């Protein structure tokens, strides 16, 4: 089977999974449906010849599910009561997004078709990557050599995010101790 068929199948599966995740009432079921969507992304990366990304996405998904379940499983969950304003908001949003989708079709006609990338900058990396850096894996040669400052910035962002979450959670722990 050609790759387009597989990708269409996986993408349709992901769209159905995300709609199910947003519309379900039970919070644990929605988190698990999001896990299905993320693993679909991982499978799509495998089809698109990106094995490193498939592994990283798989790990990301496992960690995200563990974090979400760990935090939200014990909270008692309040059901949304349906209101008229909310129904009107849903209708207006769906119509607006449908209009955006219809107008975006002409935009997608202008980009190069699937399977024929432009490859202006990457031609240099593909030809000289092994000679310049000595790495057999060109993705790691780009991430750790040509664009090492980018990776440094990534690590900074990650450090800041983890620092922020640790700070927020530690404040709450300290307050609980004071109450006791």
């Amino acid at each position, binding site marked *: 089977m050609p*790759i387009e068929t597989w*990708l*269409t199948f996986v*993408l*349709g599966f992901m*769209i159905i999974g*995300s709609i199910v995740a*947003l519309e379900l009432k039970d919070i644990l079921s*929605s*988190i698990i449906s*999001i896990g299905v*969507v*993320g693993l679909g*992304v991982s499978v*799509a*990366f495998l089809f*698109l*010849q*990106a094995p*490193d*990304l498939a592994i*990283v996405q798989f790990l*990301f998904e496992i960690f*995200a599910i563990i974090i*979400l379940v760990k935090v*939200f499983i014990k*909270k008692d*969950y*309040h059901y*949304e009561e349906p209101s008229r304003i909310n129904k009107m*908001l849903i209708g207006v*949003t*769906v119509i607006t*997004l449908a209009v955006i*989708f219809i107008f975006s079709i002409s935009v*997608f006609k202008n*980009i190069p078709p*699937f*399977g024929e*990338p432009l*490859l202006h*900058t*990457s031609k240099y*990396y*593909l030809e000289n990557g092994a000679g310049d850096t000595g790495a*057999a*894996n060109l*993705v790691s040669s*780009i*991430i750790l050599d040509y664009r090492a400052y980018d*990776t440094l910035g*990534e690590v900074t962002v*990650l450090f800041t*995010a*983890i620092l*922020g*979450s640790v700070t*927020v*959670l530690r404040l*709450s722990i300290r307050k609980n101790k004071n109450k006791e």
Partner: protein
Amino acid sequence: MIIYLLCFVLFLVGIYGVITKRDLVKIILSLAIMGYSANLFLILFAYKKSALYPILEKGVDVPMVDPLPQALVLTSIVIELGTTALLVSLVAKLFQKYRTFDITKIRRLLG
């Protein structure tokens, strides 16, 4: 082109969740959906027909897919994990204060 459009539909599903859902957990999940579709779109853009993954092997000389978007998306996935963790901790803190996830009820100022 139909694959690009399906990927865009996935992004629109994420926007729909962010706008219409009143539950903070659902909003986090819709942000995750938008992130997935953006990453997938970049990788779809990089794919080349009948090309292999960009890892060099001895004696094998075949065309390779574009390695640059793969490197950037690798960065983006890791950052997404960090931002998701930060969002989750903020929402857990909000739940401790207000005892609800509903954003229409989180309006009072509590000291």
